[in-house]
């Protein structure tokens, strides 16, 4: 059955929308964005901020765009003098009591109040009274701080915690002008989605200690990618600054925020993914390292030298037996494309049978977005025919001369002593990792790779959805994506790889 549709007109433009579409959403189809504070597409219309009032022909009063459902023949106007006056008045009300602290407010640059004042306000202040004094640094838990003077009581935060996480830590207390967002007694916002409150706050009322006073929104470069921290594959935007105001062309990541993706994460991401900012910046492998005193110590510490030595090792292992005396430990942190190259090189061309995986240890799923699987591409690996299981190191010892390990997670799956024992029995172990780990001390050679945020490729999430992404960040100097390493290796070995 065809879905019922209605015809309406917005600002003189005719359009047809599915029955039940609100005026606000219909207008967005025409590229007309009606200003709003309380409305958020994830929630039912609230109707309390009164910013989205529009004129509907035949109705005496202005009506809410967020909650009014389009009707056949409806004629809506979104920019008449009456509408503009109403917006201006709402802004004047909200700003009457609002502190003038934009210069030190983290939200500056992405604040609805600022944006709308520029578009619909621009009036001289008429407020001669004493502003209400309210608490400006209320800890809400985790990294969140609430500034009640900046709050416009849109209730988005309260509704998020009631409807999405269903944890209900925040309420609105008191009444009238004394109304305030506050925590329930004896609780704090401790759930795994707390950071979303900062994103959905349309003003600078809820800020993040992690981001507070660190930079300005307008310096940030946005790079969209897929979060690699569990199997969900949430769409994220990694926000970084490159160059000014940092010296030279230093890169610094400031924030990870959700990107809208109705098929996966809607509008949200979990705190585990969000606060991975430090993981991107800290603990990175920065240079090629070889074990002091070992056989590999003579190897030149350049990519060319390392790649030559690697190819030589593999040739040697291939020549030493059938199947080759080569072990490969891959990881589901690699992209589908990288895993495919690895499959072609190691399995198809070289006939390696000792192919294993070292994925991050599974954790607790939270019932919302975070999956127990903490690798982003396990489904992708399986689709390529891999069985992503940790290696039996004891069986490897003696069977291989050369071992290639991708990713830093092996020690999350096998005990250190066992790994140390096994590695000692293998002639040479190569570690390809973007992150430092205790594994570094066991490997003969460590080659610094890059994080998925710095790569192009695709992951296949727990639901089997394959999602492509481009580099969200410039990669650190001296580090190479595994995909390139594998492609170079294929070329050096003269084996086929697409």
């Amino acid at each position, binding site marked *: 059955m065809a879905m019922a549709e209605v015809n309406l007109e917005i600002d003189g433009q005719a359009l047809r929308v599915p029955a039940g579409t609100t005026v606000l959403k219909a207008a967005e189809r025409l590229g007309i964005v009606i200003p709003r*504070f309380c409305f958020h597409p994830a929630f039912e*219309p*609230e*109707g*309390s*901020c*009164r*910013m989205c*009032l529009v004129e509907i022909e035949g109705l*005496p*009063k*202005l009506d*809410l765009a967020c*909650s009014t459902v389009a009707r056949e023949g409806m004629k809506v106007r979104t920019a008449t003098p009456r509408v503009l006056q*109403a917006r201006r*008045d*709402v802004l*004047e*009300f*909200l700003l*009457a*009591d609002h502190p003038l602290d934009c210069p030190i407010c983290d939200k500056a640059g992405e604040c609805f109040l600022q944006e709308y004042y520029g578009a619909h306000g621009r009036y001289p202040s*008429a*407020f*001669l*009274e*004493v502003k209400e004094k309210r608490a400006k640094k209320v800890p809400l838990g985790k990294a969140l701080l609430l500034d009640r003077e900046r709050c*416009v*009581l849109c209730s988005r935060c309260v509704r998020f915690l009631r409807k999405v996480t269903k944890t209900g830590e925040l309420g*609105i207390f*008191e*009444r*009238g*002008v*004394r*109304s305030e967002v506050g925590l329930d007694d004896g609780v704090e916002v401790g759930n795994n989605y707390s950071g979303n409150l900062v994103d959905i706050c349309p003003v600078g009322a809820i800020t993040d200690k992690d981001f507070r006073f660190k930079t300005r929104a307008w310096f940030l470069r946005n790079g969209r990618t897929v979060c690699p921290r569990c199997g969900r594959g949430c769409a994220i935007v990694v926000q970084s600054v490159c160059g000014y105001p940092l010296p030279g062309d230093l890169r610094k990541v400031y924030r990870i925020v959700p990107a809208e993706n109705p098929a996966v994460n809607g509008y949200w991401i979990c705190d585990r993914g969000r606060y991975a900012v430090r993981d991107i910046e800290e603990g990175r492998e920065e240079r090629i390292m070889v074990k002091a005193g070992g056989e590999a110590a003579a190897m030149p510490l350049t990519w060319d030298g390392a790649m030559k030595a690697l190819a030589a090792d593999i040739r040697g292992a291939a020549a030493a037996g059938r199947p080759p005396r080569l072990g490969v430990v891959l990881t589901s942190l690699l992209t589908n494309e990288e895993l495919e190259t690895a499959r072609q090189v190691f399995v198809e061309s070289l006939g390696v049978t000792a192919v294993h995986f070292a994925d991050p240890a599974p954790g607790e799923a939270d019932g919302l977005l975070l999956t127990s699987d903490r690798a982003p591409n396990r489904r992708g690996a399986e689709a390529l025919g891999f069985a992503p299981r940790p290696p039996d190191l004891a069986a490897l010892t003696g069977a291989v001369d050369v071992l290639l390990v991708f990713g830093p997670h092996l020690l999350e799956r096998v005990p250190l002593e066992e790994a140390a024992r096994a590695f000692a029995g293998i002639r040479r172990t190569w570690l390809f990792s973007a992150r430092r780990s205790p594994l570094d001390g066991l490997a003969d050679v460590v080659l610094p790779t890059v994080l998925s945020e710095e790569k192009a490729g695709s992951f296949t999430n727990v639901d089997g959805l394959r999602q492509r992404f481009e580099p969200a960040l410039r990669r650190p100097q001296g580090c190479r994506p595994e995909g390139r390493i594998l492609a170079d290796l294929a070329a050096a070995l003269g084996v086929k790889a697409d």
Partner: protein
Amino acid sequence: MTVPAATLLPLDAISFRLPSYISRGGYDAARRTLLSKKPGEVMEEVKRANLRGRGGAGFPAGSKWAFVPPEDGRPRYLCVNADEGEPGTFKDRAVMTRDPHLLLEGILIASYAVGVHTAFIYIRAEYEAVARRLETAVEEARAAGFLGLNVFGSGFDLDVLVHRGAGSYICGEETALLESIEGKKGWPRLRPPFPAAVGLFRAPTVINNVETIANVPLVFRDGAEAFASRGLPRDGGTRLFGVSGAVRKPGLYELPVGTPLRRIIDEWAGGPAEGQTIKAVCPGGLSAPFLTPDELDVAMDYESLARAGSMLGSAGIIDIGDRTPMIEVLRIVTRFYAHESCGQCTPCRIGTTWISKVVDRMAAGGGVGGDPALIRRLAEGMKGRTLCPMGDAAAFPVLSILAKFEKELLETVSK
């Protein structure tokens, strides 16, 4: 003094107890109605009686009941609004205090018409003594078989709960009232859906004022035509006019709908208080626009007052004497709405407070020439723009005072 129209609240001494009510023919109308009429017929009769809501909006009661959708398996509820928070209004208190069974009989008939088996009387907590009286009346009626299971042997069941508010004017707004009964803050709901479709506990709900429901037994006791004939062609019955402020005899006067305001003040309330003349009159509870002395010939009905730029509202008439500076009136009006704003929507939450602060400053001698214009602009910013009718209620009296007494206010500023 005889009030010929005192059909709702007899002036002679009556008792609030059940035997007194029965001796006056009480519950006969309900018995006849439940035993002989179909619910649809009851609604039709109320429509023919032209009974309009006594709470403020004046919506025809029969039509309001008819909005409830056909039986769909959900329960239906009747909520009687006894919140009576509108300053200058004390009529419902009188009805419930003097003749609680009249209200209960009205609830019985209305519930039968709408198919309600649980009715609530939402009464402000300040009326604790009245609430207890209502509870006593409910017990009496239940013991007599006028409430409870199988009322009058008709097969119809009805329970009535007296539900106390807890100090909030906004809970007199019908959707805030529903929230309050549900055990929440009195935050008005976004409409649609309207309560007739989705009301209390998500079920179809009718909300009527006490006086409206108290008139229902009269419609069936005297007949729809007789009831209608006491009022105006589109507005049947009598009204309880409460008069307070600078008059000699403040009180409650039951008169035909459409009685001229001046007659109510002069003939019934004894005229202006000793040594004063009337300077302004608020004709329908504090949220009605003020009238000036030259506007007092207006008839006290919805349409006439609307034409005069005001409203009948709760018919609580507040007389302001010439000794009272209008800035003082404005100060009380604006303080009240700032105090009672629920805080949910922007224009009311901030508008009421901002205006109140400006007026306080003016009253304290710190006014500036632009203040009246600023107040007007802020009030216009609330009018018609809020989530519930409170924005209008807060703006109307303020705008009328500014329009009609601007000169006096400007003198306040220049002094």
